[in-house]
């Protein structure tokens, strides 16, 4: 799994790939962290989160929104993300964990929110491809 930060006039975009959906989700989340902070120390406790949504794309949106929410409420930057995506009929669920690096220990910039603009989440020959624009 890997991610790249892509050009966007005002905001920032993350392009990510992974062999499966789990890896692609986690890679976008790691891209979100990288867009906020370039130099992340090794400390911080892991925490878990769980989100459910009505579609695969909506689940990715809600997962990233939840990470931003946890960042503000816990005062930590979620890094080293792991995600497990499952489907039960019309309901999609993401069970995830992240290491929360205390914000007061780092210099980080704020990403305000996740957007649907130009969002892509598609299966490719190599696995999954995701593209997400974040509001800075």
């Amino acid at each position, binding site marked *: 799994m890997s991610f790249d930060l892509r*050009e966007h*006039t*005002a905001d920032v975009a993350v392009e990510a790939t992974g062999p499966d959906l789990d890896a692609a989700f986690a890679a976008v989340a790691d891209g979100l962290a990288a867009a906020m902070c370039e130099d992340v120390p090794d400390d911080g406790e892991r925490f878990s989160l769980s989100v459910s949504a009505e579609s695969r794309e909506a689940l990715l949106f809600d997962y990233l929104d939840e990470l*931003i929410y946890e960042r503000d409420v816990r005062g930590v930057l979620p890094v080293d993300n792991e995600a497990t995506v499952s489907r039960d009929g019309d309901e999609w669920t993401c069970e995830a964990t992240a290491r929360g690096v*205390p914000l007061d220990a780092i210099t*980080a910039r704020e990403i305000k*929110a996740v*957007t*649907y603009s130009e969002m892509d989440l598609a299966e490719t020959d190599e696995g999954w491809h995701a593209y997400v624009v974040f*509001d800075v």
Partner: protein
Amino acid sequence: MTTYDADGITLEKVRDYVWEIPQEGGMNAPARVLASEALLEEIEQDKTLQQLKNSAHLPGVRKHAICMPDGHQGYGFPVGGVAGIDAEDGCISPGAVGYDVNCGVRMMTTNLSYDDVQGREEELVNNLFENIPSGLGGGGVVETGMDTIEAILERGMDWALEAGWAVEDDLAHCEDEGFRPEADADKVSKKAKDRGKNQVGSLGSGNHFLEVQRVTDVYREDVADSFGLEPDQIVVLIHCGSRGLGHQVCTDYLREIEQAHQGMLNQLPDKELAAAPAGSQLAEDYYGAMCAAINYAWVNRQLIMHRTRQVFERVFDQSWQEMEMDLLYDVAHNIAKKEVHTVEGGEERELFVHRKGATRAFPAGREEVPPAYNDVGQPIIIPGSMGAGSYVLRGGENSLAETFGSTAHGAGRLMSRTQAKNEYWGEDVRDELREQNQIYVKANSGATVAEEAPGVYKDVDEVVRVSDALGIGDKVARTFPVCNIKG
């Protein structure tokens, strides 16, 4: 007819600085770009024009969707976009307001001159930076509980007045007196309130900043006099919004509307434009929640301004009243408001005027302009980049006919953040600004300074020139940075 071909989108010249994209396909109205050819050449570089066309697909959009001279690509709806959408048979779209509800600008005047500050810039910038929360996780001027958040959401600046963070005069010089009566705190999720609790009175990061500036030019003396502005005077400009609370309000309603109004969404070319039909429960709920977030943002800027007064008191050893540190005006630039405007066929309609990265610019006489400025037009504050001037304008006579009473909100970005970091090094930018322009910058992150380097922005002078030439926002005064703090 003169046309401008922008990579598959043809614009027809209506007259100087006014370009039209004709209505076609699923568009419910034509779209207009207000720009000089020089600005249009920049605007066509990214997806601004496509996003503008997309925004004209929103049901009930009246007259035309408009891109201001500083327009650039955003998400869904372009930044610098204005759409007047019918409040009876149209819709309201959180994405067309933006995540940072009531992101805006306020300016405070003083009776200090540049001479009083020269030689003390370092002390001032350090004091401001230490006392005004900024950056990610930097906390707020006050830490609040749920009850206080509810009160801020419901009452806006009136809460700040009661709590001792404002004086009556501050309210009289704020858009809507710092209070949206339609605010409904119950429509703001617990998640949003949780995020807002420890951020009341904080700048955040990105392009938000606080700047001490000096007035360099006055273009309309009579209006400048009404605004209390004169050459060489020190003023303070504060640019920030509703922080995590507002971002969460937008996110929450975008998702709810997506699920409840799939039919309308299917007619729109971008999911980020998701809109609630006028009259629906979600339209009403979002409006109440957005108005509450608007109130929060006004309180946020008020607390930062109050703290700035305290810092000046310490540095200059005078009371803020002695230094006449008075609020000139506070304007929102991410907002949707119910306003009555004249539309096609001369009909008066109530509209949800969506302004995303655009400033209200009402001329003299319009009832919403506070009594202090009703004879001259509302003040408009247009921040430039760290190394360029900012401008104070007043609402122009033509704004109601051209733009639903709106004008630009800033310089507008030209270069992506990733490219900016490759081209600039934060420390170099800071040192150059100090050595060449006597501007003192202090930021949490060098990367932020690089991302916000003067070279990444459009020419604010040209943006303001076009606004003035169109008569939508008239040039009153120009200011230039002295000290700048950011997240």
